[in-house]
């Protein structure tokens, strides 16, 4: 077993949506390099519960980087320092004894804080509901192989479809823009013939919904791509703009 580490955590605590929050500093004396970052928070919470305090709430579920539930800003970077890694898969071997780690929730007006590190990302669901789908009722599909799709297009669509909806793109964006999230779905469906009939309606509706939710505009900082656990390229955002221009031109 590897040596245990003493880790200080400076964590944002906020009891509810409309109350003042503040930072609290805690020490976890027996962190272990094999632990995941969320397991470190688990250990902290066990400590807090035992000492009669309220544990830190954070969203988490699959803990294998695919459900998109978890997401906190670790030392100023969404999901922490390891590239293409959600914080559930960030491991403590990247830290050393005595380190202090600052943990904050996603910050965006469109993601109001629910409690501590938990935010409300339902704005993402509303963006998808505005048009991020193909209108096909169960039962009406043709044989799957009647529609050949070039492997390159299918692979590219998969790159874009890999989005886990965690919201790190918004959290890291200096403008709190949801462009990468929105564009990833638009680009996924724009790559495929199935997405063609609704492509114009889709891009306008989704872009408008994104604006309505109060996200900022994209200034092409590309910070989103750098923190995206799936490494989705900002070329999706360019694709979204092309799609939008096409829709505008009729």
């Amino acid at each position, binding site marked *: 077993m590897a040596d245990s580490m003493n880790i200080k955590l400076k964590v944002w605590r906020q009891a509810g949506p409309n109350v003042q929050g503040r930072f609290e500093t805690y020490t976890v004396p027996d962190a272990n390099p094999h632990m995941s970052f969320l397991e470190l928070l688990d250990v902290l919470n066990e400590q807090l519960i*035992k000492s009669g305090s309220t*544990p830190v709430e954070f969203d988490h579920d699959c803990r*294998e980087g695919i459900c*998109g539930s978890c997401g906190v800003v670790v030392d100023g970077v969404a999901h922490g320092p390891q590239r293409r890694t959600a914080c559930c898969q960030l491991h403590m071997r990247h830290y050393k004894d005595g380190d202090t780690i600052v943990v904050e929730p996603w910050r965006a007006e469109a993601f109001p804080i629910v409690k501590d590190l*938990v935010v409300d990302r*339902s704005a993402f669901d509303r963006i998808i509901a505005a048009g991020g789908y193909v209108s096909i009722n169960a039962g009406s599909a043709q044989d799957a*192989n009647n529609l050949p*799709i070039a492997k390159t297009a*299918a692979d590219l669509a*998969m790159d874009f479809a890999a989005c886990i909806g965690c919201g790190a793109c918004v959290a890291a964006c200096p403008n709190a823009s949801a462009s990468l999230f929105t564009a990833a779905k638009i680009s996924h469906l724009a790559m495929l013939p199935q997405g063609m009939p609704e492509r114009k309606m889709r891009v306008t509706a989704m872009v408008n919904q994104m604006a309505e939710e109060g996200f900022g505009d994209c200034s092409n900082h590309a910070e989103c791509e750098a923190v995206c656990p799936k490494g989705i390229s900002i070329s999706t955002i360019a694709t979204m703009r092309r799609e939008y221009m096409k829709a505008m031109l009729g």
Partner: protein
Amino acid sequence: MKSDLDSKIPNGPLKEKWDHYKNGIKLVNPANKRKHTVLVVGTGLAGGSAAATLAELGYKVKSFCIQDSPRRAHSIAAQGGINAAKNYPNDGDTVWRLFYDTVKGGDYRSREANVHRLAQISNEIIDQCVAQGVPFAREYGGLLDNRSFGGAQVSRTFYARGQTGQQLLLGAYQSMSRQIGLGNIEMFARQEMLDLVLVDGKARGIITRNLVTGEIERHFGDAVLLCTGGYGNVYYLSTNAKNSNVTAAWRCHKRGAAFANPCFTQIHPTCIPVSGDYQSKLTLMSESLRNDGRVWVPKKQGDNRKPKDIPEDERDYYLERRYPSFGNLVPRDVASRNAKLACDDGKGVGETKLAVYLDFAEAIARLGQDAIAARYGNLFEMYERITGENPYETPMRIYPAVHYTMGGLWVDYELQSNVPGLFVLGEANFSDHGANRLGASALMQGLADGYFVIPYTLGNYLASNDLKKVDGTHEAFSKAEKDATDRLEKLLSIKGTKTVTEYHRELGRIMWDYVGMSRTEEGLQTAIKEIAALREDFWKNVLVPGENSTMNKNLEFAGRLADFLELGELMARDALEREESCGGHFREEYQSEEGEAMRNDDLFTYVAAWAYSENGHTLIKEPLEYESVKLTTRSYK
């Protein structure tokens, strides 16, 4: 509640049963569909597809999930793929063969008619998902690619990199989102179902807790669809998501729904081994890795050399040795048990000695690193992220972990439980996988149930029953709400000394040791005693922090654990009762000299459905009749 269970299997030859059924059912006319409200609990593959499809048909749907978004249900974590009998590779697949493989893979403990329907529907699922824009892997010619999976000798698995579950779930989620946008589905996220409400013996509503405000809500309708997944988290460590739980199903069970085959759990052979006590969950590595990875351990016990220092002739590729025709692609239960045997024999590897190697050296030499990266790149990355080791250079260490539960609420052919109006879909029911599920079959079942079965069977129920109007003011709701509130208050009021996680770990240890990969009469008796004692202690000494009126995950987990503490005991009882070895249920007393599982078809070809009453559980047996398949000893040799 009836004491015998009618499976309602339609008449006629196996291949025609589903058509017969569809021809004979009553339909709800389009104008009347609007008048029916359906409550769908859970938004995974089963719940998401059901909610979307029912809304498309015109029903009013209320959908519930415990996550912050329906897109996060645990189906999203399925990696490998989804089976279908398309036979695109022209390698001899048929609907019959998929049916047969699934029945055989389930070790002849599933219902023929349900499984055959599943195989028939499988092809439509692929069509539907492609039409939704699911980016399945393709060949250069633009057509769909297939790969092979354990328990089959054909390539029938469709996949989207290592994220098939995610893509299928997002397909269902997008279809749902469309209906949400159209106002046909009302979505309730961060809501946990705490009870089922029966009016005149029929399921008419649910009690939920708003996980943000703690408020208890009453929801009512004409039918309840339970799509809440499996109960693998009873083991504490499993590949399930942290929030996966049995509570909704268990509450239904306590309101009368029979729980079938609870002891049938699947231990997945390829997971990343445990590294320490703080471990919160286990991560699965897709079974597809066994297509190219070779499983081995050192021949010598306690061999501490690095894997690369162990010469070829001192390695035991035990799966290839024992099962030459299926080799590394034996079904999951067989692969898992063999890994355990190797470790029990002192040949385990790694720091904990609870792991075996999964080695890609040969495949990399044969196909090149790029080809392997294209197939498994994301899985290799994930492995490296978690373990800090590079699987291109050194073999992966893997060990079995609890992954899926074949057992679940009992349902008939219509997916209806023995509580009228309560339908159970996906992993939450017991019906299709018998004693062991084959890889890439869970996604198939969840979507089959939601897209293509429930629209027919639910319509038949609604059209056949005269459901009087019910709303939340009915006394049954008040009573259920009070029960739920009292339980929450009770949990908070104990203020003991042990945390929920400590109890859960303890339960997990008992379950893994005695109700895990291999089971004995003595061990199961011990488990029953220890779980009962633990449960008693839990209700006296648990420490749940915080209050009921805000988000409080410890309170949520405490409620779920309380149910696991009851379920665990029933699992042990079920395992004790079933004096045979079949699929994932391995009783050490019932094995051949070579250590292979020995079924007892004369005595145990039945579904063990457990009914709950205040006096405890009683076992109801639904005999399994095999008309089309001959029961044989499973052999993968």
